[in-house]
């Protein structure tokens, strides 16, 4: 259905504002349990909504949850982008 282009370096932190990615299965161990519980699951669609003025934290929408996380966390969660 979707044509995924695998990019090794792509993480949530590398998204542009408005861009959408899908959390990769291999990131599972890097996602803190709390984020997982808030809907940040492998396979879930994640959209970057806003970046804070000082580039950190970032504001994302994942699985219907609107969350702000720090870039250090976001950089650990790999994503696939559909292009």
């Amino acid at each position: 259905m979707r044509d995924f282009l695998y990019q090794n370096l792509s993480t949530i932190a590398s998204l542009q504002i408005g861009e959408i990615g899908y959390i990769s299965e291999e990131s599972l161990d890097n996602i803190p349990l709390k984020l997982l519980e808030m809907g940040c699951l492998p396979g879930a669609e994640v959209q970057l909504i806003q970046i804070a003025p000082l580039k950190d934290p970032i504001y994302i929408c994942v699985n219907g949850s609107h969350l702000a996380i720090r870039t250090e966390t976001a950089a650990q969660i790999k994503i696939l982008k559909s292009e």
Partner: protein
Amino acid sequence: MANKPIKVALIGNPNTGKTLLFNQLTGLNQKVGNYPGVTVDKKEGVSKLSATQTAIITDLPGTYSINPTSMDESIVLKTLLKKDIKESPDVILVVADVENLKRNLLLFSQIKDLEIPTILAINMVDQMHKKGISIDVSVLKEELNTEVVLISAKKNEGIKEVKEAIIRCHVAAKASPLCGINHKIDPDYFAKLKEISPNYSLYELWLMVTQNNFPETITASEKAALLSFKQDISKLKKYQHKETIYRYQEINKILKKTYLVDKSKASDVRSKLDKIFTHKIFGYIIFFLILLVIFQSIFDWASVPMDFIDGLFANFSELVKEALPEGVFTDLLTDGIIPGIGGVVIFIPQIAILFLFIAILEETGYMSRVVFLMDKIMRRFGMNGKSVIPLISGTACAIPAIMATRTIGNWKERLITILVVPFTTCSARLPVYAILIALIIPDTKIFGLFNLQGLVLLSLYALGFGTAILAGYILHKTLNINSKSFFVIEMPNYKIPSFKNVFFEVVEKTKAFVFGAGKIILALSIVLWFLASNGSSDFKNAEKNVSKLDVSQNLPSDELDKKIASYKLENSYIGMLGKSIEPVIRPLGFDWKIGIALITSFAAREVFVGTLATIYSVEANDDDVTTIKQKMASEMNPETGKKRFNFPVGMSLLIFYAFAMQCMATFAIVKKETKTWKWPLIQLVGMGLLAYVSSLIIYQILS
């Protein structure tokens, strides 16, 4: 005959309208207590379910999951794992937000697995049509195997149905789990876990293992068996991850059958508002303007009711004095108790206004945007975006501010916030500042525009806030605490605040302040009055001793009375105490009378003014109506023959009060929140030293 009340625990994600439902169910029938051993507020209320049945409803802190990551959330786990009859709930009422039902059901699925009768109340259903959401309630009930009620706490709809469901649920048979965690993950592993004890559900046992939290009822052998599961931590972690994913899979299956969203109806208000409120320039400007409005109102709007209260208590004191016969009891009442109570009541307008603003900002969802904007900046100072709320609250009172740090998951960031919050200028410093500024700063205008006294007050606020930030930076660089935890905050949808919620919040917080601080101040004013009107043998023989002195001969009788009164004060217990610390505080420009006020204000800063009032009026020994300000202005320094409260002494005192931690209640709360004596003691000594050294430098330079 009335039935035994049903114990209901109210649980839900933050921002689901849980508190509003609690308020609707209980009305004003609520009280705030403490959980044993922790200072987290326990909100309980009584709800009348039917003619014969009542319920005691406990509002638990909002949480996304049973697995806690902050102090707030750990309360939920502790309450639910309790097995003793007195504390454990009969029915759990889970509140969910209709828009975020999927995420809300995760918490529900965990709760359901505890095998306690559970009701799901889906809130904000008035929004369903607008958001294009439709729910098949009967299928959802069946799939979740639970009572499901659609409600709108805001419009007071569905409340009756919730009450009926509580009664039905209470008499229903034992609840069964929803997901069960054993099936897909590792059947053998969980079968072994379940074998440990028949008294707990599998999920309860799993929580005890993963959260290292055991109920008191567990036996030693059971506990040992459970602990053996903890050996392979990485396996535990992996299974917790798997469990969460499995739960979401099940929830998705259920929602596919029962929950439909027509996305074309989704509105765009949120993203438009977000663009403004989190904008890199406008975001900060708006935040700054909001702060400006808050402070303006604290000083401007609050001054009218404060003056009114001030006058009321002064008149009341006089009235009592006239009405009652002269005597010890009347003195205690008019010089000790009434001014003591007045000293607390006068802060109500300021505190209420501040809490009003904070409640509105939180209710609307704006506070999360502030956290988002400020996180990076605050991190440089060892804190967290969430520290902004305590720092703002601190301008009213450090106690609720320190309690507000509980939402900060990272221990180091939370600790630093707790340690620096008392630097922010709380309302108890205000009367001290106000009277000293009035005494030493001329009431003139600079550039014909700014009031000089106002500017000095503003600089003291800036000083407090700046010191807090700077102290945070120093602590950040020096504290060697490795606390691993990450930062996440939900950005809730913007909401129009509920008047009822805001009102209840303001009443509750103000009440907590008045009764908390009130008790201390009242007790102190009585103690103080006693210490000032009793003393050593010299005190008792004051008349004889003074009359014997050469200088006392040929004095007119009123002069002699004054001499006796001041001799009495010097030899009273409080005078002896003041005299004993005089050598230490003399370099700061303070005499023993100010010393007394310093000692008493270690209980609470605002006591300073009252203490000086008591001392000078005991000394004056007359009933004239001169205000405390006049009394202080006319106080002379016997060594120089000039005014006691001159510019250097006043400045030295101002700086001392800006830095010193003079608040017993803050000390107590820091001890409770950090669970050791170490941090409050470090705070007390550190702030005290800073105050002493700064005052010393200021006084020596100025005089």
